[in-house]
């Protein structure tokens, strides 16, 4: 065993080859017999008792991006389903987001190694459809009961590739009420004022992950731009609006000085939970954790309107989705689709809100008091409504990477020559897209 084979961090690539003929590389490979579509708004947690639930042993391997502790919810869900259907076994396997992406892409080369179901993020639709490893779900699952924005995230040219489980993933403003007060800042001028008031002596007014371009993206709509041109695939990063957005963030750090010198995700989050930061821009996935740690002191609001433009920031929304590998068919497919509908039924979605504190994708569940009565979830729901579905095409990855360099240059190195930064970002994105 050599040391060079020691672990890589969970991002690495394992390529694979289609052992079958080249046809495996096409999109939408598998034609399976369409089973009777299952209703999605059945409102019991009990098994939908449509006719002819398949007999025989069915084994389902479910890959989920959920780790500890959320994976316990997934496991409980699986257990509840198999309690109703004794002939079905579900093996829940955790795979981190990047790992899951790579592993599923690799199944293009070895279809027998594919799982029966994956629970993952929307932007995987791009690579998965390119590699041809997932199947269309139109007509196989009734999509009427799901929130439109959530569905839109996994629809490409009118074809639906996934079923939403939760809706969100949006960045929003968390604030510590004991420092900031009851009301969040309404616009960015107020944001700066509040932050300045609360900075000093090792405390900071505002923190966020300064190293990932994901934290730049909400502000783009606030300055009136977006990353792609109208065709949705050509990068459009070298614009005055982008420069304005970068300048805004630069000012927060270097002019108003309300942010720490270096802050990655962990540091920003730790500062907020330990009370050393008044406000943080972070995602809805932390809602449960922050609520546990800050209790009643936690406030949640959408990102404040940009004063100079009057536009609202629009964070990217996504969420978690079920996707079905293309190799699955027949009875197994029937059971898989049934599981999908069952687990996203209203009652189960309400339970998910209880356990995971995430916004459901099921429309009825969204209107349930458990969501509407919870001030935190209500804040999150407001934030999600101002969001925009995250582009899921493969080029988006190029764009994120190009913007990463830009944001690190501006916030990390303190480069204030925004014009050259955006020019570099555009060049990098174009170079990347060209070699895809």
């Amino acid at each position: 065993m050599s040391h060079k084979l020691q672990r890589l961090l969970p991002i690495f690539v394992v390529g694979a080859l289609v052992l079958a003929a080249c046809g495996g590389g096409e999109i939408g490979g598998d034609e399976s017999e369409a089973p009777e579509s299952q209703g999605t708004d059945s409102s019991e947690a009990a098994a939908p008792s449509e006719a002819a639930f398949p007999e025989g042993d069915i084994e389902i391997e479910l890959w989920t991006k959920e780790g500890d502790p959320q994976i316990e919810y997934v496991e409980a869900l699986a257990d509840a389903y198999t309690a109703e259907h004794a002939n079905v076994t579900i093996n829940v396997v955790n795979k981190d987001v990047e790992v899951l992406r790579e592993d599923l892409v690799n199944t293009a080369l070895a279809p027998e190694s594919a799982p029966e179901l994956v629970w993952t993020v929307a932007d995987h639709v791009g690579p998965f459809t390119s590699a041809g490893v997932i199947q269309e779900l139109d007509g196989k699952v009734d999509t009427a009961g799901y929130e439109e924005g959530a569905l839109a995230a996994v629809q490409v040219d009118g074809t639906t590739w996934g079923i939403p489980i939760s809706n969100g993933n949006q960045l929003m403003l968390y604030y510590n009420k004991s420092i900031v007060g009851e009301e969040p800042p309404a616009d960015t001028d107020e944001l700066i004022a509040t932050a300045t008031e609360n900075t000093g002596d090792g405390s900071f007014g505002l923190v966020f992950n300064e190293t990932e371009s994901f934290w730049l993206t909400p502000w783009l709509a606030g300055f009136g731009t977006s990353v792609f041109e109208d065709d949705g695939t050509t990068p459009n990063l070298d614009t005055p609006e982008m420069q304005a957005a970068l300048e805004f963030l630069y000012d927060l750090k270097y002019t108003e000085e309300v942010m720490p010198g270096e802050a990655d995700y962990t540091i920003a989050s730790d500062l907020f939970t330990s009370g050393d930061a008044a406000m943080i821009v972070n995602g809805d996935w932390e809602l449960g954790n922050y609520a546990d740690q800050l209790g009643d002191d936690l406030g949640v609001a959408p990102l404040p309107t940009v004063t100079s433009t009057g536009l609202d920031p629009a964070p990217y929304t996504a969420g978690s989705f079920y996707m079905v590998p293309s190799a699955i068919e027949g009875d197994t497919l029937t059971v898989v689709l049934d599981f999908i509908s069952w687990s996203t039924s209203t009652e189960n979605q309400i339970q998910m809100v209880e356990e995971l504190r995430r916004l459901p994708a099921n429309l009825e569940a969204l209107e349930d008091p458990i969501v509407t009565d919870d001030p935190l979830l209500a804040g999150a729901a407001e934030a999600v409504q101002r969001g925009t579905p995250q582009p899921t095409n493969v080029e988006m990855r190029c764009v994120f990477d190009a913007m990463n360099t830009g944001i690190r240059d501006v916030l990390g190195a303190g480069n204030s020559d925004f014009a050259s930064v955006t020019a570099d970002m555009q060049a990098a994105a174009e170079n990347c897209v060209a070699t895809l």
Partner: protein
Amino acid sequence: MDVDRSVAALSEVLFTLAIFAVGIAILEGVLYVILVRWLKARLALPILLIAPALVGLTALIIYPLVWELNVSFTNMSLNRLCDPGFPAGLLAECRGEPMFIGLDNYINVFTRPVLQVAGFFQVFWQTILWTVINVAFHVGLGLGLALLLNRHLRLKGVYRALIVLPWAIPQIVSLAVWRTELNAEFGMVNQLLSLIGISGPSWMTDPFWNFFAMIMVNVWLGVPFMMVLLLGGLQSIPADLYEAAEIDGASSRQSFRHITLPLLRPVLVPSVILGTVWTFNNFNVPFVINQLELETSDTLVTGLFRAAFQYNRYGFAGAYAFVVFAVLLVFVIVYVRRSGALRGAYE
């Protein structure tokens, strides 16, 4: 812990080992018959000794290498995920395009930016710098510590056990902790520096200090390993050679030059070679410590990863990897020849 699963796991491991043993026995038996009984080969014994390892390595390494070489002449990528087949995709088409693209990938490695902006030669130079400095420190400090520990000393075992800890702790956590501790404001490194009145640099954003930090962390990680290797080598030098030299009036520097170094050579040389190769190919440390993906801190291996693997450009990655491999191979062949590491005990 589940008894059933443990028993199952244990029996599977034992079963595999047993199959392994049987396979070896058969291989050796066949070779024995052929080489000793039939051909009466003079060199039967070394071949018998080496055969099992050779067979295993061929399967595990030669086949994958050949596969990679094959792919490197094709345009296989995420959008063209088809089997090129042998040879080199000459006969295959994917999405309507032929897969064989000849030396294009290899040319692209040298002519197009390997990272977002930086080209091959810049990253290559950075890698050389990274490797040389690291190995110098690994060997220097490792040897120094080994020499200190190779004496009668109280608490020797304690020191040794403590110094080995960086190697024992899984890198996944030690590197994550290091990365956080290198934070300019909140990290322990700068906090300690400020205790002695130095204002610590910005390890993550400054290109020079980030490179320095990478080396620092890798030295921390690598010295224990080198120390253990060299200590073992020192242990096998007979003590009375030193005593005889002392009686003859040699200074410790002289006995180091004339006794220690020559006798340590057979162990030192492979250690240096392997240390160089592993440092060159080290992915974890540069990748984690270079959190902001500064192009000045990237090495060939991290560059390979970023440029190729994040986008599933399998063909390009294959070519890039072979270029890296070729560079190392040249170095190894040259160094190995010159250092005489290929000589055996009789020479």
